């Protein structure tokens, strides 16, 4: 009974309607309503109100704040990771995120190849830093060797693409190859010097020693990408540049003031050896050029350039590391003598 009442009540409510005249009137007046042509005048406070409106949407607000924090702290991490060494917390960020991203952002193959070559050199520099602080263990060495191999294979890919792309790039390929080989050889010798003086006995048959990997990488790239097709007109120009590298390195040696330490003498001696090698190769190149064996002459010239560059890099890096080691030694000696003084002071007081 009550149910019927309810349904009836609903029906009665639904019967509340406008009359037809009212409906028509409203429809007409709505349809004739003019659309405002002018846009409303913008308040001066609209910018602020938008900021507050944005604040009201909490999710969006927190998302923006969070992304800002991530971006800003991310930049800090990027900056801090640049000088990290293997074993540091940020080192993986550097080699797994930062460097691949930079490489991906580098557009031209030429620049990519140069970047990979620089990275391989950088790995060796890191190994040198660790070795000079006696922190280079077997695992790290293995890891750095792997990284050098990876950079070399990436360089290999880039160079093969560069070689195929156009003939004009051949000279650039020669440059990259020469620099890479010189860098690898020079740094591996520096590393050997450091490790040798640390009483580190290197097992030559070991495949994962960094210096061996670096030398092999340099030789591999040289063998694969030494072009036979050279622009022989540039022989003279190239020869001049090799001579200038030899001369400037010789001058650098003459300018070394404090050359009494044994380690420095060793560096200088090795640099001289390399320079002699470069000069000999240059002479060979000239001989072959006179005999019109142009291709071999140019190849010898490139080898000479590589040796000269190697001598230059070896001298600079070797001296820098010796200075660093001497500073450390002095610091250690100072602290030892200080502690000795403190001990004697304490003994006297007792």
């Amino acid at each position, binding site marked *: 009974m*009550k*149910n019927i*009442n*309810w349904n*009836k*009540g*609903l029906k*009665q*409510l*639904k019967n*509340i*309607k*406008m009359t037809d005249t*009212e*409906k028509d009137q*409203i*429809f007409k*007046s*709505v*349809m004739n*309503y003019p*659309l*405002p042509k002018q846009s409303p005048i913008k308040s001066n406070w609209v910018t602020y109100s938008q900021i507050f409106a944005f604040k009201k949407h909490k999710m969006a607000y927190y998302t923006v704040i969070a992304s800002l924090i991530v971006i800003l702290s991310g930049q800090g991490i990027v900056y801090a990771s640049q000088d990290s060494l293997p074993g540091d917390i940020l080192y993986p960020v550097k080699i797994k995120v930062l460097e691949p991203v930079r490489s991906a952002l580098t557009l031209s193959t030429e620049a990519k190849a140069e970047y990979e070559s620089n990275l391989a050199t950088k790995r060796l520099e890191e190994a040198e830093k660790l070795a000079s602080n006696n922190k280079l263990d077997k695992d790290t060495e293995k890891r750095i060797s792997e990284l050098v191999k990876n950079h070399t294979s990436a360089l290999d890919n880039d160079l093969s693409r560069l070689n195929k792309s156009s003939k004009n790039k051949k000279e650039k390929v020669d440059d990259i190859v020469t620099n890479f080989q010189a860098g690898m050889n020079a740094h591996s010798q520096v590393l050997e010097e450091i490790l040798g003086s640390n009483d580190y006995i290197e097992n030559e048959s070991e495949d994962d020693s960094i210096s061996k990997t670096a030398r092999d990488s340099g030789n591999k790239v040289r063998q694969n990408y030494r072009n036979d097709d050279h622009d022989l007109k540039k022989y003279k120009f190239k020869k001049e540049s090799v001579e200038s590298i030899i001369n400037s390195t010789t001058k650098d040696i003459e300018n070394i003031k404090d050359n009494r330490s044994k380690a420095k003498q060793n560096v200088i001696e090795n640099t001289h050896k390399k320079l002699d090698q470069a000069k000999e190769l240059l002479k060979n190149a000239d001989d072959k050029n006179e005999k019109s064996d142009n291709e071999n002459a140019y190849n010898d010239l490139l080898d000479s350039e590589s040796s000269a560059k190697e001598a230059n890099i070896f001298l600079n890096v070797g001296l820098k590391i010796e200075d660093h080691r001497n500073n450390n030694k002095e610091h250690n000696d100072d602290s030892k003598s200080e502690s000795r003084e403190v001990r004697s002071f304490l003994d006297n007081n007792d």
Partner: protein
Amino acid sequence: MKVNITHIFENIYKKESDAIFRFCFMRVSDREQALDITQETFTRFWQKLQKDEDIQNNRAFIFMIARNLIIDWYRKKKAISLDKMIENDLEDTPYFTVDDSSIDNLELGPEGRYVLDKVNELSPSARDPIYMRFVEGLSPSEIGEILGISTNAASVRINRGLIELKKKTGYNDNVK
């Protein structure tokens, strides 16, 4: 384009004008005022259509405009104590109590009055959902959109209102 939106408007007007009028009339208890608000509601809807603004559900949108206009009308009128209105909300204002004589104008029978009385007895948060669901036949998602709450919340309010209604009317499962 113009023809198209005129056609859309005309269709919606035919279908919904009575429901909107009824909704306004129930809340403002004044026929002339209800007609005014209905006209204003459809004018605003027409403007939105002309500006080609994206409207997801026309029906819910029109109800939302009407509801906001009624809230504005109450604010201006201030006949009902503002204390009763919680934060711009209509929920506290009962249906048809402003002017009892207007109920007579409706020519409602005793059953209609009974339904209105029972709706008014409901808790404020359940009044609108129950009215919209059972008198106007709006879906929970439409009710949610009109009231600015989620579909789930709208369903919960309808269900709670229904339980309350059953208790007050003594029905078991007769209210459908």
